[in-house]
């Protein structure tokens, strides 16, 4: 039998006879049948709802019939369940009628674009204050880490250096090698127009040692370890591990953030240095591959150009970039609140912010070196 509702009217008295299956699979049909039959009993003083012909009633069907009873009740129709031949169904409907919250349902209003712009802007000062708080707390933690080494998880340091540094060597090395090749090609195609291919080795050294080596390595590490550290700490935060650390008397900044930042500060200059060497190889391969410059001449020109100041300008920036990555990633991780989605959002923010801050800090250093004439 199909799901249907028969309506019969006799003056002030009416009866509704739902028939067929009233279950989850037929919930839509049941609702439609009720919507058709209901107007025909409107105005009646008493309505019998006869369950004798209901075949299979489950929770979903019971909800549909319970809401029908509710509407009839509020319409003043005095509904009555005829339940002699189907007591289980009547009990189920009664259960869904008694267990009903009084609180009216307010679907959450959609936030408009203006509203969102406003609330984002309004939250900016607080975000800035939180960031400064975190940096301040970190700065104060550094002397504490030295005076009371027991409060820092030093034992995690070798593993962190392995994860952040050694495991990243292949990808940072490959990125630097390719950037070296790109500078080489670019140098040959641009300087070559003026017959100045002999200056390509110098271009590779200056561009890569001073700027690109530190920048490329830091961006790769920010993407890789920034995401890793942020999601690790964010997961610890949402699963209350950070709270547990606090309750045991550990300062999470000392215990977690200091070793992670230190590991970054140790490995990033090393990765940068290895990257510098690989970029030289890239420039060499590109230049000697597409021009007739003798390899020996390229190497001699490179060796002549490498000076302590070029190398140091690049390497001196690295620890600062490393610190920025570590602080952004750990800070975002610790600021996580909520559940799995918050972990994802904070990780995304950590990667975007750490890459952006790496670029900004690099630009500031370049400006400084230009002003100092180094």
């Amino acid at each position: 039998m199909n799901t249907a509702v028969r309506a019969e009217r006799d003056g002030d008295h009416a009866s509704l006879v739902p028939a067929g299956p009233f279950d989850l699979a037929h919930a839509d049909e049941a609702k439609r049948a009720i919507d058709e039959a209901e107007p025909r009993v409107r105005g009646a003083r008493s309505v019998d709802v006869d369950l004798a012909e209901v075949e299979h009633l489950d929770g979903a069907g019971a909800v549909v019939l319970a809401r029908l009873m509710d509407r009839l009740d509020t319409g003043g129709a005095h509904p009555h369940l005829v339940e002699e031949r189907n007591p289980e169904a009547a009990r189920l409907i009664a259960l869904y009628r008694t267990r009903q919250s009084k609180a009216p349902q307010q679907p959450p209003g959609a936030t408009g674009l203006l509203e969102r712009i406003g609330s984002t802007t309004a939250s900016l000062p607080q975000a800035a204050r939180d960031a400064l708080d975190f940096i301040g707390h970190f700065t104060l933690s550094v002397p504490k880490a030295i005076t009371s080494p027991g409060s820092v998880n030093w034992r995690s340091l070798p593993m962190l250096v392995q994860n952040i540094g050694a495991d990243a060597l292949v990808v940072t090395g490959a990125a630097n090698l390719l950037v070296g090749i790109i500078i080489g090609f670019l140098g040959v195609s641009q300087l070559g127009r003026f017959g100045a291919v002999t200056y390509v080795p110098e271009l590779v050294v200056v561009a890569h040692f001073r700027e690109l080596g530190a920048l490329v390595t830091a961006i790769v590490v920010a993407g890789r370890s920034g995401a890793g550290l942020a999601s690790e700490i964010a997961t610890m935060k949402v699963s209350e591990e950070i709270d547990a650390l606090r309750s045991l008397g550990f300062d999470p900044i000392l215990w977690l953030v200091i070793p992670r930042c230190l590991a970054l500060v140790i490995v990033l200059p090393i990765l940068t240095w290895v990257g510098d060497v690989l970029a030289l190889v890239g420039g060499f391969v590109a230049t000697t591959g597409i021009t007739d410059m003798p390899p020996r001449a390229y190497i001699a020109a490179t060796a002549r150009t490498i000076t302590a100041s070029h190398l140091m300008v690049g390497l001196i920036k690295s620890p600062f970039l490393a610190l920025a990555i570590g602080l952004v990633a750990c800070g975002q991780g610790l600021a996580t609140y909520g559940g799995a989605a918050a972990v994802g959002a904070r990780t995304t923010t950590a990667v975007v912010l750490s890459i952006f801050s790496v670029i900004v800090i690099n630009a500031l250093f370049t400006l400084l070196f230009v002003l100092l004439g180094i």
Partner: protein
Amino acid sequence: MAATRPHIIVDDLRAGWGSRVLMEHVSFNVERGTTFAILGGSGSGKSTLLRFLIGLEKPQAGRIDIDGVGEPHRYHGVPPFGVLFQSGALFSSLTLAENLSLPLTMWTPIRGPMVRDLVQAKLDLVGLGPFADHLPGEISGGMKKRAGIARAMMLEPELLFFDEPSAGLDPITAVELDDLIVTLSRDLGITVVIVTHELPSIFLVANTCIVLDKKAKGIVASGNPHRLRDESTIPFVHNFFARSSPDISAIPGR
């Protein structure tokens, strides 16, 4: 009246990983419409047995047969039973209403206001009506479990599995939850399989139970929990139930 087929038949199940056998020769039936408890101490494999029953693991040997489903680990399609996980396992980025509407929109053609009605009715049923638009992070542990039960019931299953429903709750909330389980099985006629070590709730909700033991690697006793408590001569079972006895003089050293 002809005897109805048991809802779940477990026949000589062996569970474990590789050569490590966790339990073997596990056989029991769960009758339709009853509340069945799986008892045992920590590490006895209660929750693991549940993972086999809901098809997350494949038995090493033996057979599990759920009426209308067959072997649970081979089943695909509309979930034929609801599961309440230990922590509730609500999706933390979705509100309670969204958590509950997920199975409906996935497995039924129902859309729109009808979804909202059914979700609200289920939330009302477990007493969470006013919290439809709250995130799981904003409600208490007991409420999360009740929301988990509501979500497990969205597809109107005839069979519900509960993993430690009252673990980590205060006695009053735990009793409320037990009452809810009794309501579900008595008023809705749902078969309930419950994994627990909370003795008060066993006596309140369970018609039948099995007791698992780590050392015996399987079932050491089965039957009605009240009768097991009063009549069992097996030391482990006796000790297990004696702990719930209000007679503290039975504890050695008193």
